[in-house]
Structure formats: C-alpha cells, structure tokens
C-alpha cells in the first residue's frame, strides 16, 4: 500500500524540519504552548494528507501546513476576547520574550537588550511581514519556497519582503539600536 512509504516520508520530513516548524509557529503565535500544539496539529494533518503530497518541495509543503495550522489558531484566538491580539500590542509582545538570568556583565546586558529590541520590533510587525522575514532571513528559504509556503505569487513575496525589511529597519533605527552596524 502506498500509505506506508508516504507516511514514513511525512514522519521523516516533520522530524527533520521540526525546529523550522516550531520556530515559525513560535514567531507567528508568540506562545510556546500554542506553537507546539500547532506543529502537532500540522503533523497529524500532514500524516493524514500524506498521499496528497505529490512531489515538489517537501519542506515548503510541510511549512505551508504548519503555517495554515498557526493561522487557524490565530483566527480562533482573535475571536476570543480573553486573549490579546498579538499585532499592535507591544506590551503583549514583551510578555513572550525569553527571560535571561541576571546579566551583570555590561556587554552581555547590551547584547541581550539588543536581542530583546529586535524581538519586540519583529513581534510588533504585522504577521504578513513577520512571517516572510522569518522564512527568508532565519530559515533561509528561496523566493519560490516562500511563495509555496504562503501559497501566494512570487511578486507578493518580493513586495512583502521589501516592505517588511523597510518597516523593521525603520523601527530599529527609531529604537536607537542601529548605532553600531552589524555585519559589514
């Protein structure tokens, strides 16, 4: 039966790209528990739909399912008044930031402050820009792969990426954190 080999393929795929899936979920949902649940949902859905996977880029197919499961959770959450929408509420974003232990060395303080500022600004971006930045800059997906994950034209990927970069750049500059350029 075809389901056995295909199922194995999905298992391998999900486990190999589990960090990427969780990272995407964590950035989209802002919560550890929700991200883990969304990835588990995605795995079940992928396993169930394994015989519908017919070639193409496997990682993009898997991440597309993860993303859809996250968006479904976001949609449910935005209807739930007990929860705060994750966009446009910096205070809410800060609650999800990783807490580091006491940093008494000045340098470590600087670097952790910088990390926190980037995380806050990234979490503040509307989800359409945040996801494209995560996929491109952190997961290093190509335009085509991102287009497959978002199920959107390549042109949309390019314009969202450009807009997302500009917004984040501007936010970080205004935050006063880009005094010392990184990289080059």
């Amino acid at each position: 039966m075809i389901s056995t080999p295909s199922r194995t393929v999905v298992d391998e795929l999900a486990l190999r790209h589990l960090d990427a899936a969780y990272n995407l979920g964590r950035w989209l949902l802002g919560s550890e528990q929700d991200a883990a649940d969304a990835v588990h949902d995605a795995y079940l859905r992928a396993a169930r739909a394994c015989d519908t996977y017919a070639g193409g880029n496997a990682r993009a197919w898997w991440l597309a399912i993860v993303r859809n499961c996250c968006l479904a959770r976001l949609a449910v959450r935005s209807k739930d008044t007990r929860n705060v929408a994750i966009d446009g509420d910096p205070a809410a974003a800060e609650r999800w930031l990783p807490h580091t232990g006491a940093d008494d060395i000045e340098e470590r303080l600087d670097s952790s402050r910088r990390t926190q500022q980037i995380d806050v600004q990234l979490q503040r971006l509307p989800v359409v820009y945040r996801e494209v930045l995560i996929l491109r800059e952190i997961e290093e997906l190509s335009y085509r792969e991102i287009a497959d994950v978002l199920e959107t034209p390549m042109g949309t990927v390019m314009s969202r990426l450009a807009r997302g970069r500009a917004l984040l750049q501007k936010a970080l500059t205004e935050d006063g954190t880009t005094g010392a350029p990184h990289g080059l």
Partner: protein
Amino acid sequence: MDCKTASDLLPLYFDGELDRATSREFEAHLDECASCQAALIELDALRQSLRHEAARYKAPQALRTRIERAAAAPVAARALQNRVRWLALAASWVLAFVAGGFTLEAWNHGSASVSEESQLTRDLFASHWRALAAAAPIDVVSTDQHTVKPWFAGRIAVSPTVRDYADQGYALIGGRIDYVGSERVPVLVYRHGKHLIDVFVLPPAVVPAGTAPVRQQGYVLERASMGGQAVAMVSDMDETELTRFRDLVDASSRGE
C-alpha cells in the same frame, strides 16, 4: 544600468535570485554607486541582526517526543488517534482547510498507483496545479525565447531549448523552475487562448515510457520532444488542441 533599475534589482541580487548575466550588470553599477552600496550594507546589517540576534526557537523536547511517538505508532492506531484529535480540534481544522485547502484538495483526487511512471505523472500534474493555485505559474515573464533561455542558464545545470510558437497560436509567456521528484527541472509556459500549457523539460533519467495522453481531473498530459529533449506538457486544454501543439513541437524538433 541606471540607479533606478539597480535599486529595483538590489533585493533580488541580495537574495541570490538574479541570474548571472544581470548580476554582473548589477555589480558593474554597484562598483560605482555609493547609494546602492549603502543600501546593500543596510540590508546585510538587518540580516545579520535577524540571524544572530533574533531568537531562533528550537522545538522543545516534549514536542519532539510527542511526534516521534506518533510516528512510531502503527498506522491503524494512528488513524484512531488522529480521529480523536480531529474531533477535538474540529474548529481549527475547518479554518485550516479554508485557509490552505485548494492544492491539497486537488491532489487528493490524484491516482494512488505506486509505479514510478504514475509517480512521475502525479508530480507533473501536481506541479501544474500548484503553479496555478499559487497564481504564479511563471517566474520569468517573457515572450522572448532569448530572455527565457539565459534566465535558466544561471539557475539550472542543463538549460532547455526554448522555442516560441506564437505564430501557430501557442505563445511562449515565460518559464519557471519546478521539481519532478527531487530533480529541479525547467518548465516553459505557453498560452493558447485562455489556457496555460506547462512544458516540463525532463532530465534523461526520468523520460516517461508511455506515449498515450494521460487525463486527470480535466487536465491532460502529453509527451513530446522539443529540440531533442524529452518534454511532458500539461494543460486543461481540449485534448485535440494539446495534441495539435504536441505535433507542432515534435515537428519543429525534427527540423520540419
């Protein structure tokens, strides 16, 4: 290259999405333009920040264990487990399918044969549907075969013979790179009336055995030879129309 063109191309260059020839033209401009240099440095600074300073969350061990356990479970047990989860999560499932169901829906109807030949057929149909579903069947938009061919040259090992049949009613509108199995293959996209035709240039290792057209869900797959390379064409066109195109391509390949 002027600065306006260069700044439009800058992100594509930065992301490694420009073909070789255009990259070189861009670099020639970059050498002499301080503002494009500054813009590139800024993009890179942002990337370094995101790669090295933004959190990259690793999947917690508990999640990994959950999935490993599910993966190890026998298929029958998993089906039950899935059903229970599905009921519990009914609301979010419905939304998930609404958000991303189209492509999967189309694939669901595909044949489930295990032979390599039908796997190839499935890949080709899926690629065609995926491209249509993504509303981006083409990566390089051009009606000029002299633009389409070099675009592939920078991205793929074997660049295809690119021919236009606009005079015969089948106009080349562009190309993309897609996967057949694990192989990246060039796809030439033609338009006939309101129908799109994907022409997959097949690597020698996956040349299909059969010659009869294959039909799935109102789509037809035909095989032909274009400029000596084996191709498979997929379209929702009327079968006689697609056969006419196939004969045209075969004839031009023989140099008639």
